[in-house]
């Protein structure tokens, strides 16, 4: 064919012109680590389960959640949700109510009777777990799901540990706890109650490994001179006795000494037991208080009073001697020499807890420091095959941390039983706020959970915080911005001026057609969730 003047191309489509050769940078899809997942002490894939909840597939969401943590209904009530503190949405309007959706899923699972999937065939290995608290139960759950035989020996009369004997009913109703514990036992986990392990070396006979999770149940003491008739109790025993038939007698005026969450729990419990005055005495100020702010706020709403910058020096019948304190440069309380009297029928000491380590006597190569057992990165103590977690090792003490310890220990125990080492996946890079294009998220404020009315909060042990229903749980789940993980919004597919993004269909995400991609970067700039990255081409 003779081409006309000044014509160089052949008739045809522009597809013969591979514009990919222009590119100096190429877009690539990646998954980044959402900050919520990064913050979760139990290692939940929060963004992952919210993704399923968003489409109303609550069972799939729940199944994904319990891959990491068997206690969603408990967590949805007692977890201090560090995930929400880190949630990127908090920088836009307010964090996603992860905790409330988690509770909704947990309650939904109980209501509908969802069961864990059946464990695989038995590995033939047996693991002893000491203590049926959150850490021990979590380890038992994960080990059972890996096919190992599990026996839990629990000193107390019921399972749950601090979830039952430390957390009051108004925060965690016992039927919820019972349901989630039972579901774990239904996996074939053997639970022996009222069987205290006196010596772990002896008890370990017949087991291939052991996990210690006895918690911290011994109340810390402070020396306070007390007259014979003074009524002084410790917070651990008080909260423990709430599980019995007989309610403890505290009188009308109860003083709680301490500034942690336990002090708050005790004061709120005292109000419900009929104390007209429940007063927390704390040596420092509200800013320095270790208790979580929302708990302090809820306690104040219920009429609990707090006396700041005060130390109790002496307890007598019906009366305490209190010294005023001041904070020094380092924020530590210092005495002033000014004293005053306070009326009190009961003084409750909530000064922290220690671990009962007597069962460890005679175990070689153990290291005890500051009253806790030292474990290495794989949760194993110095004694091979003996692992430990929860409140008895050095860490923040919360139900969620304990559940995380249980999972982590289970993975390492599983590897140990196979004669291998557990290699965790390397973490993806963090999807921080700067990686998002938040224009694409519509404005939607957080759903506030209903609270029980104040009179019933002061007089009954009914649960204080309500849950979400199906419609507002869905709303809340859909506030998730899916940070760092493609949610198939089609933006990249839409905004490419060169049609160089190929849509692979529902659930299959997208891929780039590098034959035509010019590397303009629009897809990466307009990706709402930061799941595309531009990388330089090798030239």
């Amino acid at each position, binding site marked *: 064919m003779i081409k006309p003047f000044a*014509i160089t*191309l*052949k*008739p*045809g*489509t*522009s*597809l*013969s*012109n*591979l*514009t990919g050769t*222009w590119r100096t940078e190429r877009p690539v899809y990646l998954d980044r680590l959402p900050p919520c997942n990064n913050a979760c002490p139990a290692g939940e894939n929060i963004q992952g389960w919210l993704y399923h909840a*968003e*489409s*109303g597939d609550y069972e799939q969401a729940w199944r994904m959640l319990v891959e990491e943590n068997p206690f969603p209904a408990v967590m949805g009530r007692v977890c201090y949700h560090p995930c929400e503190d880190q949630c990127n949405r908090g920088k836009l309007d307010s964090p996603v109510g992860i905790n409330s959706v988690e509770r909704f899923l947990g309650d939904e699972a109980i209501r509908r009777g969802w069961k864990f999937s059946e464990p695989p065939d038995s590995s033939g290995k047996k693991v002893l777990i000491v203590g049926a608290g959150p850490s021990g139960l979590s380890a038992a759950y994960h080990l059972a799901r890996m096919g190992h035989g599990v026996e839990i020996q629990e000193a107390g009369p019921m399972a749950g540990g601090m979830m039952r004997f430390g957390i009051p009913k108004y925060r965690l109703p016992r039927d919820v706890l019972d349901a989630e514990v039972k579901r774990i036992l239904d996996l074939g986990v053997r639970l022996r109650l009222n069987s205290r392990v006196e010596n772990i070396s002896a008890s370990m006979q017949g087991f291939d490994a052991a996990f210690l999770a006895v918690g911290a149940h011994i109340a810390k003491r402070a020396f306070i001179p007390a007259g014979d008739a003074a009524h002084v109790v410790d917070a651990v025993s008080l909260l423990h006795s709430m599980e019995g038939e007989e309610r403890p007698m505290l009188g009308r005026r109860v003083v709680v000494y301490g500034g942690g969450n336990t002090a708050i729990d005790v004061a709120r419990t005292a109000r419900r037991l009929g104390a007209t005055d429940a007063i927390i005495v704390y040596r420092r100020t509200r800013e320095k208080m270790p208790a979580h702010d929302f708990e302090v706020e809820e306690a104040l709403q219920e009429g609990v009073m707090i006396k700041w910058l005060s130390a109790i020096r002496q307890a007598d019948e019906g009366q305490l001697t209190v010294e005023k304190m001041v904070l020094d440069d380092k924020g530590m309380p210092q005495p002033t020499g000014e004293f005053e009297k306070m009326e009190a029928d009961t003084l409750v000491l909530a000064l922290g807890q220690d671990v009962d380590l007597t069962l460890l006597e005679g175990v070689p190569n153990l290291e005890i420091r500051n009253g806790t057992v030292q474990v290495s990165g794989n949760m194993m103590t110095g004694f091979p095959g003996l692992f430990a977690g929860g409140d008895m090792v050095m860490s923040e003490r919360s139900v969620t941390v304990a559940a995380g310890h249980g999972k982590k220990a289970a993975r390492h125990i599983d590897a140990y039983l196979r004669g291998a080492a557990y290699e965790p996946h390397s973490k993806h890079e963090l999807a921080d706020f700067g990686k998002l294009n938040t*224009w*694409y*998220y*519509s*404005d*939607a404020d957080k759903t506030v959970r209903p609270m029980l009315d104040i009179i019933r909060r002061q007089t009954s042990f009914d649960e204080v915080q309500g849950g979400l229903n*199906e*419609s507002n749980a*869905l*709303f809340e789940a*859909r*506030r*998730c*911005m*899916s940070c760092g993980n493609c*949610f*198939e*919004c*089609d*933006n990249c*597919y*839409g*905004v*490419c*001026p*060169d*049609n*160089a993004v190929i*849509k692979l*269909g*529902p659930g299959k995400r997208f891929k780039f*057609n590098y*034959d*035509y991609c*010019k*590397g*303009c*970067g*629009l897809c*990466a*700039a*307009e990706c*709402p969730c930061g799941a595309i990255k*531009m990388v330089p081409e090798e030239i």
Partner: protein
Amino acid sequence: MGFQPIKFYQTGTYTVGNRLLSPDQRSVQAAESRSNSINSGHRACQGCGEALGARYAIDAAMAESHNRLIAVNATGCLEVFSTPYPESSWQVPWIHSVFGNAPAVATGIAAAMKVKGKTDVRVVAQGGDGGTTDIGFGCLSGMFERNDDVLYICYDNQAYMNTGVQRSSATPPAARTATTMPVGPEPGNPFGQGKNLPEIAMAHGIPYVATATVADLRDLEYKVRRAMRMRGARYIHLFVPCPLGWGTASHDTIRIARLAKESGLFPVFEAEHGEVRSVLKIRRKVRVEEYLMPQKRFAHLFGSHPHPEMVIRIQEIADRNIRKYGLLDEEEAA
């Protein structure tokens, strides 16, 4: 329970698609079956707003007309980069007119279809701002005046880009082009000149006039589909940033279009028979500096020899648009 009636809270209507939406609520661009009217391999610059806008608009017109569409193209970037004769990116029946007569050619095709009884075949004419506001203006005004059955789409990138960024009557005040250099006491394109073509189109009293940007696909698709459901002369003025001519990063094309709308400099509205019927409200108001500063064509307003008084005058233009079209919600405007 499946789909809920939505208001969808995860992404709003701002993303291109959404897996939570029922299929009939999804955008044309989200579909794997979209017509890709302008195909890969075209020679537009990286991040070209016009290439993107043209695919958005013509795909929507194709969907609404059940693929019975003829597109007429004035000379300009869009024609040059898509069709270096005899190769073409277009996957629709497409004809290149000369620079100034696209509206007249479209009128003729519409008349021919009518004579042949093919009333289902629809005609779209398209051109850049040069071919529309300057060179093609006489033909366009005639097409409006006769109320010919054509949808005319102007891709406004505010200058003659393919010939080397010369000023057009759509170039904004203060902008640097090859013919309005940033020199003298009032550098760049002079204030008080140029044309507001959407308002001129409205003055013809034609059935439908709308403005849109490439930053809001759903609004654009809605307007194209609405225009395609009408008969008579219709006009859509589409704001398409040009990375080359404006001196912006190729990945900023959509952001810049968004800022033009959010600052009030480019009001997005629709009008019927000369009367404004709805406006797209400003969602996160920004000052004009946020729009101007990323563009090198406005660089002389800032930097070591700044012209704050000119920035103030540009802000006044934005404020006037906001008042005139009611671009802010009541409480925000107060």
